């Protein structure tokens, strides 16, 4: 699954650590999601969507 998390974070000038704090996950988890190595659960995806004020589809895209 692809995502725009890194772009959205950069647009707001946030560090991975700041985004991790906002999403209540570790910095390593944010890094893994940004790199596409870990797909977040639906609740975490909704949390990211709320934080960025976007829909889930605008952040995460299915590669299949």
């Amino acid at each position, binding site marked *: 699954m692809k995502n725009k998390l890194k772009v959205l974070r950069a647009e707001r000038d946030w560090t991975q650590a700041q985004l991790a*704090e*906002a999403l*209540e*996950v*570790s910095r*390593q*988890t944010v890094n893994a*999601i940004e790199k596409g*190595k870990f797909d977040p659960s639906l609740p975490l995806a909704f949390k990211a969507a709320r934080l960025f004020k976007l829909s889930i589809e605008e952040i995460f895209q299915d590669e299949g």
Partner: protein
Amino acid sequence: MTDKNNEIISKAKSWQQKNKNNTAKLGFWSTAWVLSMALTNFGPRFIWDLNISLTVIAVLLNLALGLKMVLANIAHIKALDEMQQRIQLNAMGITLGLSLVVGLTYSNLDVLDLITFHADIAHLVIFMGLTHIIAIFIGNRKYQ
């Protein structure tokens, strides 16, 4: 950053603090359990001269501290984020599976007299610890 985002982040800092507290609690109860294990094993011979009552108390204390350690571990894992929980789950699965298979093979070697020494339970505990540490390390590397 907006006020709302600042509010979200300050609330999240309490999550991180809670995680640190859970880790510290797990460390405390693990240390207490290990110390009570040493007391249970060495106390009867070297401290209280095989007094049965004190030995039973030491065994019960060791059991109680072990249960506290398990509860602290559950709280610690519950508070981790979903990727960390997955790493832990994978590591526990690998540890359980390998310990069962390798442990029984090790026991067979002893029963069949294919090894010259006694298959001690402590060897299995060491194997489990090392397997879990390696599995956690590999799990973390996988998501880096």
